[in-house]
């Protein structure tokens, strides 16, 4: 199952020189608030490598969500440019799928219909559609809930549906906007573990926005620490902790403490 998922990928063969699948250069966003300009984002540059899981960590109001909205193409940047596999990004598309923080499933569609939504209208066969839907339902462990409506399932299940409905489109980059922030602590941990196991199977490139240090340390290959007023990337920290990561281990605590300290100095400065 997992091999086939990798095979249908549209990514080009890796070159000798690693080029980021997602390349962000000099991105700025200026909003006009009460007649005066507000720098939501200033000169954001980074590259994401294929299969990398990057967390964007920062206090609320630092422009994390704005960054994600620009990357997904919902709002245009004021300056700078983004390329995905060398192609410029300027509008929303299924190559950069988003998992939203809030519940963004279609309430009038069942779980299975929500998952197959993106594939419909592409001239695919009925049989194939059904098989794919089944496959992704079982990938997110919701085989038994295909006929349920979103309002009949729990918050954690809803976010698993939200994951399945974009993974079925095989995006090049998965953009996740604090997807587990609205869940209770226990479900959040379960979802983090679940995301990591999915990522282990499908190895998507993921950009995960969060304000939760523990979450970032649990998930990330690399953490971009953001600063606010203006929003910019202050630190780019590679995480070398071995996986699976134990939340109880000293190394984990050490890493978290280090990040907390960084965030505190940000606030002070």
């Amino acid at each position: 199952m997992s091999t086939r998922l990798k095979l249908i990928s549209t990514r080009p063969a890796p070159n000798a020189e690693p080029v980021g699948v997602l390349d962000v250069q000099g991105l700025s966003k200026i909003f006009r608030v009460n007649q005066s300009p507000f720098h939501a984002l200033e000169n954001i540059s980074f590259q994401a490598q294929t299969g990398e899981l990057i967390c964007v960590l920062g206090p609320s109001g630092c422009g994390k969500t704005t960054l994600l909205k620009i990357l997904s193409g919902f709002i245009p940047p004021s300056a700078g440019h983004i390329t995905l596999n060398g192609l410029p990004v300027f509008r929303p598309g299924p190559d950069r799928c988003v998992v939203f923080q809030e519940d963004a499933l279609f309430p009038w569609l069942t779980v299975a219909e929500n998952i197959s939504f993106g594939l419909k209208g592409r001239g695919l066969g009925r049989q194939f559609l059904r098989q794919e839907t089944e496959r992704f339902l079982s990938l997110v462990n919701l085989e038994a809930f295909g006929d349920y409506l979103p309002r009949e399932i729990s918050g954690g299940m809803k976010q698993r549906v939200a994951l399945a409905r974009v993974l079925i489109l095989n995006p090049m980059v998965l953009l996740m906007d604090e997807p587990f922030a609205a869940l209770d602590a226990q479900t959040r941990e379960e979802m983090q573990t679940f995301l990591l196991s999915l990522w282990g199977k499908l190895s998507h490139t993921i950009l995960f926005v969060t304000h939760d240090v523990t979450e970032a340390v649990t998930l990330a290959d690399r953490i971009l620490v953001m600063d606010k007023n203006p929003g910019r990337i202050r630190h780019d920290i590679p995480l070398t902790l071995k996986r699976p990561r134990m939340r109880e281990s000293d190394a984990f605590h050490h890493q978290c403490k280090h990040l907390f300290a960084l965030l505190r100095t940000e606030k002070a400065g």
Partner: protein
Amino acid sequence: MSDRPKPYQLLPWIIPAALMMAWWMAGRNGWIPEYLLPHPGDVGKSGYVYIFGPAGSGPYAGRFAADAAASLLRVVIGFSLAAAVGVPLGILSGRLDGMEKLLSLSVNGIRAVPGVCWLPLSLVWFGIGMKTTVFLVSLAAFFPIYLNAAAGARAVPPMLLQAGAMMGVGRIRGTFAILIPGAMNHLMTGLRLGLGISWAYLVLGELTGVPSGLGAVIMDARMSGQIDVIIVGIALIALFGQSSDYLLRCLLRMLFKSARRTP
């Protein structure tokens, strides 16, 4: 509701029952003269004769089917026209600022004119009968349909439209698969209000002297002083209005998942 004690479920019927009782008493004891308000039993008899009696057994006997068919046809045509224009225009002006700017002044201007004012003009334009009635019905039904469709299209959560956009859904599919289902609650409200108003304006159009229709029967009975038939006509229109509302809801539920599954 259903597990409430029995007296609670009887609550909605107290007022109708009391009114019926008062009417019965008034008729029996002669409190109100017969020519103003006939006895309910007489009204029942007239209703039976009008609906089921063979032609010739009473002044209006034998023409119920033709009257009902004529009225229904006028309502269906008028309402369908209003829906066919009101829903698309409403959705467009709910989503597109330009469309809203273009339409809102005119729509609100025309809406400010009471529907009755159009009667003389439409009599001149279309004459007495089918066309005038359909014109009045569709004009009156248009406004609630249009306004609710616009409000519904505006109220669709942007998150759902963004979700569609990032899954690569184009404009046309986005409209039919996200916008319309997302606005379904409002659309249903607008259509149901529109259908209710349709019956009101049907009677107005038929009061002008058309040969057939439930409104025509009411008007005709007034001239011949048959109060019982007027009351029968009113009751029938109430019944038709209620049933058509129920049928409309069933139809929408049958056609749209979003109508079935909206709580």
